[in-house]
């Protein structure tokens, strides 16, 4: 008899589990050695508590699965671990001296279109560093990220580094009308540069300003992309440059600056980053600064963290082994 399981979920059998366990043990080892203690939180949370993060209305990863408990309260399956850990910090570490370091290996649940490396139940491995401001906190998180990927044996990965505040600052500096900004941000979030160009053309900006708003988010590459940016964007670029200078050398050489990097979770405030490997057509994971999220739970602390998709990491490793990774044009 064949009995179905829900779309986007799967069984993991012994051979795969053995390989996956090797990956998660290597990740956990680096996290623990770097001072990040593992925590475990319930997969089910009160929907109203998760909603404090303010991501449900705007993010592409709001909780997708809800149930009622016996008292009629709405529970939701968490869609990431950052929000539950923000809750833990506010409720269980209300008086603890920062910085606080946490790591996790946990399943999260999203209402996505199931495809390769994109299940609805996904295993995430990550860290949260709470109470460490930029740039040092960001630098520490990136160093741990690369140490973890190195420990797993991923060879050809790169880390895209951007700043969630950059485009907003650029729009404000140029004086883009408030009613035009959501359309520009929407086009950028969808990576639709044709639409971005169209909205800019209709926005009544000078040709120079429109060109700037179109070209800056498409800049990516070495430190040269940070050069000669206009005032407000230069501040974010300065922050990125500072992070880069403080990174361990072997981490710094993995970095690709990406001025168009916008992560879809609504709570990012500063530096954001994503991990790419030529063996996989989608990011393996990523993270960034969320300096305002903890405040929404009642403990105002700057924070930074990242999450890796363990399935995607596994696929990328297998791809690198087989040599199916598209070789980088260096």
């Amino acid at each position, binding site marked *: 008899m064949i009995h179905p399981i829900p779309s986007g979920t799967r069984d993991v059998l012994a051979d795969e589990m053995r390989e996956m366990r090797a990956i998660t043990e290597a990740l956990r080892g680096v996290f623990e050695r770097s001072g990040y203690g593992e925590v475990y939180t319930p997969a089910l949370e009160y929907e109203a508590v998760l909603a404090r993060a303010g991501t449900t209305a705007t*993010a*592409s*990863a709001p909780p*997708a699965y809800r149930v009622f408990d016996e008292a009629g309260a709405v529970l939701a399956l968490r869609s*990431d671990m950052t929000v539950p850990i923000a809750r833990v910090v506010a409720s269980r570490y209300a008086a603890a001296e920062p910085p606080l370091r946490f790591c996790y290996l946990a399943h999260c649940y*999203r*209402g*996505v*279109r199931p*495809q*390769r490396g*994109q299940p609805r139940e*996904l295993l*995430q491995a*990550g860290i949260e560093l709470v109470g460490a401001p930029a740039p040092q906190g960001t630098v520490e998180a990136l160093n741990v990220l690369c140490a973890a990927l190195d420990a797993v044996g991923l060879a050809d990965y*790169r880390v*895209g580094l951007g700043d969630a505040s950059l485009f907003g600052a650029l729009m404000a500096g140029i004086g883009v009308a408030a009613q035009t900004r959501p359309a520009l941000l929407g086009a950028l*979030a*969808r*990576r*639709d*540069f*044709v*639409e971005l*160009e169209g909205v800019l053309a209709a926005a009544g900006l000078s040709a120079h300003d429109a060109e700037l708003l179109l070209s800056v988010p*498409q800049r*990516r*590459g070495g430190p040269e992309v940070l050069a000669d940016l206009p005032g407000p964007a230069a501040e974010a670029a300065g922050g990125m440059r500072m992070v880069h200078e403080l990174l361990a050398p072997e981490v710094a050489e993995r970095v*690709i600056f*990406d001025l168009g990097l*916008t*992560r*879809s*979770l609504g709570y990012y405030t500063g530096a954001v980053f*994503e991990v*790419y*490997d*030529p063996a*996989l*057509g*989608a*990011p*393996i*994971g*990523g*993270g960034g600064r969320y300096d305002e999220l903890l405040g929404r739970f009642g403990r105002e602390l700057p924070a930074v963290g*990242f*999450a*890796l*998709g363990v*399935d*995607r990491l596994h696929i990328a490793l297998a791809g690198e082994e087989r040599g199916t990774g*598209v070789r*980088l*044009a260096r």
Partner: protein
Amino acid sequence: MSPLGGLRIAVPRGALFNGTVDLLAGLGVQTDELRTNDRKLLFEEIGVITMRPSDVPTYVEAGAADVGITGKDVLAELALAEASGAAPGGGARAHGGREVYELLDLGFGRCTMVLATMAGEPDPAAEALRRLGVMRVATKYPRIAARHLEETGRQAEIVEVKGSVELAPLTGLVEAIVDLTATGTTLRENNLVVRERFLECTARLIANPVAHKLKAAAIDDLLGRLRAAPARDGGASAASARGEDASAA
């Protein structure tokens, strides 16, 4: 360096094929075999793979091709597809249903999404709506059609067909069709008239998000040369001049 800088490009067979091949030839790609051999799918030596236009976003999203060319109709239909994806930890938000970057309007293959019904008055679709409260609409673009009718406040029953849409109103299956048209010739030949035009579609250059970072120089070089190419604003290219064919045909 090869003309595409080592990139692999997904090229659509069908109505956008000639315009795309002309564009590639303009970039210095050796396209002779591509033009003559319509059975071969993989042209490794020039970095080209060929497929139906609706498959292009699938190959590009997965990274099986770094960049691709497809119609805005294909992208718009996907954009309205089910819940958009998010990477672990919340990655790049999907371009609608697919995580690809839309980089450039290539300007050729210009077509319009239209609503058409049988010629004559009264309009049979309006009549169905008035008397039966719902109009039946056949289309290869069920989400685009449903969205358009919803936005214009009309109740409709969408009938998805894979082949010639024009047959559906002729046989009484539906009162109206939503389809892509360049010149309107096929519609006229089937006694159909365009009642509404609502979405301009042209060929677009799309890119895989990871390739966009890891092969930035090659992609930017390609973009720069395509922006400078004469075909971009040419409008009436070979593909659209050939007539009726929707790019998804």
